[in-house]
């Protein structure tokens, strides 16, 4: 019994040690964001932000470039979420409710496209978008993002659509509901968790994406939040970095998304799992 208790204590402390290691960078970002550059310049680190202030945040927000990037990111995310979920929903219905010639090829294409490395395509995407004069625009980036997100959302949604039996809706129609009523009252609510999960997935992808944005958004005033933040590290190579301000900028970008992620996480994983299992 004693040995077992000792073992349990060992397992628990090991779990705590790993928890601390994994959370440390996040903690360090927030900690440093409150400290003055003078404090951070000392060789001995300041472990807790006593005597900290919001000055770094004020400095970072002062020139308004953050809000510009925020607006750009929001616009792109909204367009991508709307169209990706809509297109993927229609396609998911087609492949999970119908058997038709070419269905297998479509499913295969969806799977294969997920394997295509974005890093192998961005040159062509750059050429294509610049040839139609859509560099530095919301639409140009969104088209590429929607195409990148659709295969996985189709995959995820098809599990949900397959999970709602068609009989259910037909039963409602027998009970006297019209076709559209039967859909919106019976099927749609049951699909809601799947739609939310794929919307969240599309949102996070569009919000955090860096590579395509780097290639297609070449002007400073069309930067998304990841590009805006990258500007701070780039500056660090050429001059003395104000790490307090860089960490404040990172915190501004990361904390809202961390909170959002923590809230929707359970739903997301449930969505991923049912997409994989029910398929």
């Amino acid at each position, binding site marked *: 019994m004693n040995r077992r208790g000792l073992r349990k204590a060992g*397992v628990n402390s*090991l779990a*705590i040690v*790993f928890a601390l290691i*994994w*959370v440390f*960078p*996040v903690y*360090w*970002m927030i900690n440093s964001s409150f400290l003055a550059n003078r404090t951070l*310049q000392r*060789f001995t*680190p300041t472990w807790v932000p006593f005597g900290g202030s919001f000055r770094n945040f004020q400095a970072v927000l002062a020139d308004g470039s953050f809000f510009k990037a925020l607006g750009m990111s929001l616009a792109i995310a909204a367009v991508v979420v709307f169209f990706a979920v809509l297109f993927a929903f229609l*396609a998911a*219905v*087609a492949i999970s409710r119908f058997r*038709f010639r070419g269905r297998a090829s479509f*499913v295969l294409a969806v799977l294969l*496209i997920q*394997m*295509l*490395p974005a*890093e*192998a*395509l*961005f*040159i*062509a995407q*750059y050429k*294509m978008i610049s040839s139609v004069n859509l560099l530095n625009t919301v639409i140009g980036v969104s*088209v590429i993002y*929607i195409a*990148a997100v*659709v295969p996985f959302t189709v995959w995820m949604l098809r599990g949900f659509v397959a999970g*709602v039996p*068609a009989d259910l*809706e*037909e039963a409602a*129609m027998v009970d006297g509901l*019209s076709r*559209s009523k039967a859909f919106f009252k019976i*099927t749609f609510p049951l699909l809601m968790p799947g739609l939310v999960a794929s919307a969240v997935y599309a949102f996070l992808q569009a*919000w955090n994406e*860096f*590579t395509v944005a780097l290639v297609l958004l070449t002007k400073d005033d069309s930067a998304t*939040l*990841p590009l805006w933040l990258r500007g*701070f*590290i780039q500056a*660090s*190579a050429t001059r003395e970095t104000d*790490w307090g301000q860089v960490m404040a*900028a*990172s915190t501004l*970008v*990361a904390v809202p998304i961390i909170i*959002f992620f*923590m809230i929707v*996480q359970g739903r997301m*994983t449930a969505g991923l799992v049912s997409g994989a299992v029910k398929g």
Partner: protein
Amino acid sequence: MSVTIDRTPATVTPTTVAPKNRRKRRGGIPYWLLVPAIAILVIGTGYPTAWQLVNSFRDYGLAQQFGKPAPWVGFDNYTSLITDTQFWGVVGRSLIFCAVTAAVTLAIGLGLALLMAAASRAARLALQISLLLAWAMPVVAAMTVWTWLFDRRRGVINYTLDKLPGVDMYRYDWLAEPLSFFAVASIIVIWMSVPFVAFSLYAGLTQVSEEVLEAADLDGASGSQRLRLVILPIIRPVMSIVLLLQIIWDLRVFTQIKILQDAGSNATEFDLLGTYIYKIGTGSQHFGVSAAASVIVLLITLAVSGAYVWRVMKEDSQ
């Protein structure tokens, strides 16, 4: 069947539709439903892929940017890459980086999943919340923090290591040497990828029933035997999918390398495939050569993931 409603105007009354055999009669509907998805995939992915393939056989450089026609050069772009030792260096580094990072990620992820399963509620919750926080960090934000942690002069990692007896890490420049540069990159990628692996494997572990483990106990299985002979076989399917995803992701790692290069050096010794293609493409404007390099990356990825696609297709047709 809900399908049809989505495209039918709400004014259509139920009587216009025969409820039986709708699936067979409305042959065109699934194709209409697929049109938007296929259109966007053709524009966003299909056309660029075709462009890459075509232009990997042409001399497409700066002059063509200004309208000169691009001459066909056969396999010249490919041979110039294949005979280039620099390119092979990049390919080799990418494969090694991918193998090491994916293997360590899987090992740590499995370890943490087992810890979650064995720990008491409070410790498990602490570990899960901390992993979730790391998982939620946007890549670029995570990169700024890690460059700060590894900062040569005032980074907390150099400070802590320097405090250890007999270790001199004062002002050690991690990003100056390729080996330590990629070690840093690997640590960051592992930190970012472990949460997904740990949660997936933990989900798999929770499916291993208590009864099975007790039965193994009664039969006199030791701890390591239980792990090897009972637990691992049960979670093997999850493990193989997770490992495959890690390999694909680690092979195409771009953001982390690019941003570390911003903070350190962007000489070719610090390139992996993603940054290398980016450089010859957008940097030196050798679009033909970079297209050929992209096709090679594509082939490597397909070779790695082909088996997985095949298995999923087989399951789907059942």
